[in-house]
């Protein structure tokens, strides 16, 4: 056996960046602000550079696109994080433009379709126009809303102070009702001189329906045939919350489908930029409210990167245990709810909820809350798991859950009705899946074995022996099977973690309310049960984040929804949406 060549620690993204500089001299420069990394590309060259990055450098997965408003410098920035599906760190590239309306940046949707929703979100919240975007409408707020709310100079009606803790509440605590502080006595603001009686209501949906106008009455075999427009949601039993889809139908077949979101847009990012670093932790719980344990992890990972601190050894194991338990309960619920969508009303979901309750008991014992765990702290976790509960986790992992997963498998996997509803429906090819920025089980069901726990390991996942579950057909049946596979792999990780977990402190830092975070930017991402959950944070060294962005897997995984639904039946749309696994709290943020 030959000795392996010495491993060279070359950052592949730095090499790629150098190539980029050579290819576009003068247009690409390294971002040299302290604490920042990546490459700044001039807006004129962005389209060409993006094509080069995608085609030549092989960064085929555009994970996150986000805007930042540098008010004092008079600049707006769009930050892109691109990855290779073969693994490795991100190539971060940015575009900086002057902060004068109209702010325009060329769209990268012709190269990565996955930028579609994210660019619409930036247009909605920051007012940056993306030239060449096929359908640039507001996505979270309604059409006609005054202003772009994430801009630093845009103030909401209940605005009290720039940053928390507010002087009215701390240290003295003389709180005045927000309603009594505002001009209109409510959470609304109108420009001076606004006259609601003369205001002509515009249809906020006009632009939406205009994009469906191209479907007109056709004459087929001498019979005039009309398309039917169906609005599903925001209150509909099959949409898993307040999601809405406008579906254009030809008979029962879907011709076109437009998702409408924002019905649960509760301004995580705006509030997050007012909070202190630690105050954001409980808000992350409320993103994907099935998996608060994983959400915490993504955020603490990003902030720990910025702070440059180590995580206590025992806490690393506790994080893995909680995240994997969370993944198992998420997939149980997903399968139960998918059966709901297919018409097996609530019985499979009841089986799923039984297991979920047992896992929630563990979360409650560890953190004090069933759902909103708020368990992670920078440098570890908030408290240890009680000793007798460690035994319960053992019992669950070694004795109960394997049998229960097998039971699901036995009852469903070869069930004739189940299989005939799922097999071959909503196929997403590997190329489509990567191009639309699918992550998580959606991507792996299409044959791309991309799992962040392996491709770009975080925490201590490099210590465990597990397989990246992958299925190759990309249809709905594979999207179900991959969840079963993943639950089994999670159990493998749990078994190893429970055997290896050392004793010791659960936090490497002293508990404190105010966290000192050096200036800079960081992107922390984890393999959440629904896909890649990323947090992009920018610090200016103050006690509050300057920018706090959540790259939500539910949101971006919907990019491919129209692609998978077209030419399928309307009834399949319901199941296809269920198989994507969306949670509205995270989708709309």
């Amino acid at each position, binding site marked *: 056996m030959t000795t392996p060549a010495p491993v060279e620690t070359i950052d592949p993204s730095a090499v790629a960046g150098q190539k980029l500089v050579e290819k576009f001299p003068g247009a690409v420069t390294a971002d040299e602000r302290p604490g920042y990394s990546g490459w700044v590309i001039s807006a004129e060259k962005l389209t060409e550079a993006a094509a080069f990055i995608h085609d030549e450098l092989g960064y085929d997965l555009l994970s996150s696109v986000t805007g930042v408003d540098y008010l004092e410098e008079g600049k707006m920035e769009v930050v892109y994080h691109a990855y290779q599906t073969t693994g490795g760190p991100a190539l971060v590239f940015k575009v900086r433009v002057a902060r004068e309306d109209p702010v325009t940046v060329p769209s990268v949707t012709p190269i990565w379709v996955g930028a579609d929703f994210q660019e619409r979100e930036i247009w909605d919240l920051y007012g940056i126009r993306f030239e060449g975007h096929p359908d640039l409408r507001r996505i979270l707020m309604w059409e006609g809303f005054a202003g772009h709310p994430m801009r630093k100079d845009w103030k909401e009606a209940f605005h009290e102070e720039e940053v928390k803790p507010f002087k009215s509440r701390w240290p003295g605590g003389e709180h005045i009702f927000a309603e009594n502080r505002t001009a*209109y006595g409510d959470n609304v603001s109108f*420009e001076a001189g606004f006259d*609601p*009686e003369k205001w002509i209501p515009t249809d906020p949906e006009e632009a939406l329906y205009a994009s469906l106008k191209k479907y007109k009455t056709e004459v087929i075999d001498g019979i005039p045939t009309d398309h039917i427009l169906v609005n599903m949601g925001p209150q509909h039993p099959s949409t898993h919350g307040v999601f809405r889809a406008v579906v254009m139908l030809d008979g029962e077949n879907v011709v076109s489908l437009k998702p409408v979101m*924002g019905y649960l847009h509760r301004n995580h990012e705006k509030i997050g930029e007012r909070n202190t670093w630690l105050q954001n932790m409980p808000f992350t719980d409320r993103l994907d409210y099935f998996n608060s344990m994983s959400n915490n992890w993504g955020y603490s990972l990003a902030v720990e990167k910025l702070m440059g601190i180590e995580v206590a050894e025992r806490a690393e194991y506790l994080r893995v245990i909680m995240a994997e338990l969370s993944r198992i309960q998420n997939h149980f619920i997903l399968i139960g709810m998918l059966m709901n969508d297919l018409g097996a009303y609530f019985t499979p979901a009841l089986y799923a*909820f039984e297991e979920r309750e047992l896992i929630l008991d563990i979360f409650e014992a560890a953190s004090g809350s069933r759902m909103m765990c708020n368990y992670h702290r920078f440098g570890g976790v908030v408290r240890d798991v009680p000793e007798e509960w460690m035994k319960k986790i053992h019992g669950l992992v070694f004795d109960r859950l394997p049998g229960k997963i097998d039971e699901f498998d036995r009852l469903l996997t070869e069930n004739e009705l189940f299989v005939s509803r799922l097999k071959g429906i909503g196929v997403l090819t590997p190329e489509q899946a990567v191009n639309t920025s699918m992550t998580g089980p959606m991507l792996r069901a299409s044959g791309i074995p991309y799992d962040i726990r392996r491709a770009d390991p975080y925490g201590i996942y490099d210590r465990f022996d597990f397989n990246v579950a992958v299925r190759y057909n990309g249809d709905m049946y594979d999207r179900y099977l991959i969840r079963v596979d993943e639950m089994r792999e999670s159990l493998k990780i749990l078994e190893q973690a429970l055997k290896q977990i050392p004793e010791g402190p659960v936090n490497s830092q002293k508990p404190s309310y105010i966290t000192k975070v050096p200036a800079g930017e960081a992107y922390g991402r984890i393999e959440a049960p629904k896909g890649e959950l990323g947090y992009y944070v920018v610090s200016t060294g103050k006690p509050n984040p300057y920018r706090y962005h959540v790259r939500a897997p539910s949101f971006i995984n919907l990019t491919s929804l129209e692609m998978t639904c077209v030419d399928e039946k309307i009834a399949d749309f319901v199941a296809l949406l269920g198989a994507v696994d969306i949670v509205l709290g995270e989708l709309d943020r």
Partner: protein
Amino acid sequence: MTPNELNSPDYDIPEELQNVVAITTLDKIYNFGRRSSIWPMMFGLACCAIEMIAAQASRYDLARFGMEVMRPSPRQCDVMIVAGTVTKKMLPAIVRLYNQMAEPKYVVSMGACASGGGPFKEGYNVVAGIDKFLPVDVYVPGCPPTPQALVYGLIKLQEKIDKQSIKQVRWYQKGPDSVEVPIPMLGPDLIDPRRIPEIKAKAAELANPPAPAEESAA
């Protein structure tokens, strides 16, 4: 309901008839029927909806209270559990759903967000409490409330129903049988139709600060 609860106290029923005959009031029977089969609307907004589903599931089992039949259609339900953050974008749909419910109808505000905005109160797209628009019967605190808390809130609703009298309830009086809430509009910001004069006056005042006379004109 035990015979003791059902029977009105002042009537003696012969012992041999006690299992067969009950003498009671119409109110009691009417309310017993209503409160034992409250159908909630299958209507989840946010995190609280998951705890609402958990309350429906096997461990907490709302079926014990006759509340297991969740109806997706507002026409068929008796109680709207507002489970989660009410956003401005969603509000017109919620008010419309409430208007579509048939009397008698009740509203349970579940969780901190629905009761008063909760952690998201300061958000620009958040309505600080559904009670600014709909009449709420029971508030359930918590973020999110545990299923036990929701069950307790629904028991409180049952107690409230028990106290109603058929002679006084709104839906058997003359006049409109249902209270319609004007549907808010999505303009430059959320416009509550009931407050249009107020908004107009205030906006005019902001445009011309030293002109308090305009306020009285509106």
